[in-house]
């Protein structure tokens, strides 16, 4: 008699909402390949864990964003938000697809130049732009959005020093009915501070104002917020024209559009709750219809969309290292990717799927990372099929912020790979090794033997 396939014995309690009337549990679809490349092949070649980026996904999302906005507001330009993911290869895909660079520090500015972006296609934001950095940006004719009155004064000094015509924009902050106040950056538009900044710029006579910038916040799922924002910016532009005869070159509405990830506080998956990019485009163009100028004078609309363009392009491939039963009876699956490389696990219920076909009854589990740290939890609770040590898993939609905010903590940061639009794959960042860390360190003479 042939033996039946073995599954670990398992008894799963029926919970409301989890089962259909036949008592079966929803199945998890494995993801065995990414853009046609087998997950097993990638892990074999580059090691585990591993970040993988899909070039195709970046190309598709960028095209979707451009089409959605240009259809409604033709003078739209996308600037890639470096902080969201500034690996050179990633930035180069965005630049090849027509995106400018949006940077928030001198380091990012230098990285954009290093990536071959012309200075005039760099938008320089952020609350700290030292005089040297401002000088570099002004000489390169970059777009510079000033954050505060002190920076305004520094900018005037730099403009005087280099003795060139210098144009600047100002960052403003404003309230909408759908977003929490983000008053920390820029001049407040609602209380008149932004108007004071304009008067101050004009009084100084050393800078000309050519743009407005406003970044509302992040993971915004309400298109209405963008409608209110762009309408307020349009009305401010009208005031500048009427009161001060200033015609703006651009209005920059920042980033913040939600990706399709799911927040811990959300019940429904993000794929169902995040509106499509076209709804955001609709909202912005409707807000901008408040502009009173002639169509020829319409300002360029800059978008600094970050996470909505790159989240879905990124994956972490990881391996199961242990199965455990915790003292309270909960099942724990330990994997080799921790929160030091996936800090977005604190915000999102990242989708995690096996990379090989699975059988057996799914059971509630906690997914733990490998760090010696209690907070190393990748998913506090999800219904997950049985997995064995050595099984491979795919964590989805990890492309935003993780490879810029990751931490080297007790282990090495893993390799990062890109899969090209034609299905080739290549390293875009090597895995760290001992020398990566120790090369930065010095041992003073008195400790050397």
């Amino acid at each position, binding site marked *: 008699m042939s*033996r*039946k*396939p*073995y*599954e*670990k*014995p*398992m*008894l*799963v*309690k*029926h919970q409301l909402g989890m*089962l259909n009337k036949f*008592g*079966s*549990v929803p199945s998890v679809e494995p993801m065995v390949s990414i853009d046609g490349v087998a997950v097993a092949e990638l892990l074999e070649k580059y090691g585990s864990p591993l970040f993988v980026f899909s070039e195709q996904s970046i190309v598709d999302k960028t095209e979707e964003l451009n089409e959605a906005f240009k259809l409604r507001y033709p003078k739209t330009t996308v600037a890639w938000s470096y902080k969201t993911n500034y690996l050179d290869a990633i930035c180069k895909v965005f630049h090849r697809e027509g995106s400018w660079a949006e940077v928030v520090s001198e380091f990012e500015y230098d990285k954009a130049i290093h990536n071959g972006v012309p200075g005039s296609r760099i938008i320089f934001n952020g609350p700290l732009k030292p005089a040297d950095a401002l000088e570099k940006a002004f000489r390169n004719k970059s777009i510079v959005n000033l954050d505060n009155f002190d920076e305004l004064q520094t900018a005037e000094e730099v403009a005087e020093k280099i003795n060139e015509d210098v144009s600047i924009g100002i960052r403003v902050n404003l309230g909408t009915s759908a977003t929490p106040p983000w008053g920390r950056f820029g001049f407040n538009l609602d209380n008149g501070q932004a108007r004071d900044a304009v008067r101050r710029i004009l009084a100084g006579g050393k800078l000309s104002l050519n743009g407005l910038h406003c970044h509302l916040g992040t993971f915004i799922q309400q298109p209405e917020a963008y409608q209110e924002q762009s309408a307020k910016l349009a009305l401010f532009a009208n005031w500048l024209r009427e009161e001060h005869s200033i015609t703006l070159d651009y209005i920059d509405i920042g980033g913040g559009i939600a990706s399709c990830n799911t927040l811990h506080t959300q019940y429904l998956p993000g794929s169902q709750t995040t509106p499509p990019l076209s709804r955001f485009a609709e909202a912005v163009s409707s807000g901008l219809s408040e502009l009173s100028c002639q169509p020829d004078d319409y300002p360029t609309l800059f978008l600094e969309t970050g996470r909505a363009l790159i989240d879905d392009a990124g994956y972490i491939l990881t391996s199961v290292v242990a199965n455990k*039963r915790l003292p309270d*009876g909960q099942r724990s699956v330990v994997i080799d990717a921790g929160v030091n490389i996936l800090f977005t696990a604190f915000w999102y219920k990242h989708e995690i799927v096996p990379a090989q076909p699975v059988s*057996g*009854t799914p059971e509630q589990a906690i997914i733990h990372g490998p760090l010696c740290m209690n907070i190393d939890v990748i998913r506090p609770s999800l219904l997950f099929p049985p997995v064995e040590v050595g099984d491979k898993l795919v964590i989805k939609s990890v492309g935003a912020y993780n490879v810029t905010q990751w931490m080297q903590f007790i282990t090495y940061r893993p390799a990062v790979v890109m899969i090209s639009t034609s299905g080739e794959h290549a390293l875009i960042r090597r895995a760290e090794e001992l020398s990566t860390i120790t090369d930065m360190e010095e041992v003073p003479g008195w400790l050397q033997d």
Partner: protein
Amino acid sequence: MTGNVRLQELAVNESGFVFDPHTGLTYTANETARYVIEQMKAGSAVENIVEGIKAEFEADGRDVYRHVLEFIHNLQEQGLSSLEAPVE
């Protein structure tokens, strides 16, 4: 092992649907889980249950002993089994 009162009460059907008349809760048991429950009801010792599974299922290279112990422990934790795993 008629002494395992709680387990004897469980109604387990062929498709793995488990009903606990005591609490009204329902569960799904996979095939190996059903096997373990039946064997426990019949009073088999852990070692025999493990051997039985290895004979009926393709479990080569799998740590069946650990899986069975964990399962029995789980039953107790859920209040479905009143006894420790019987050992020979």
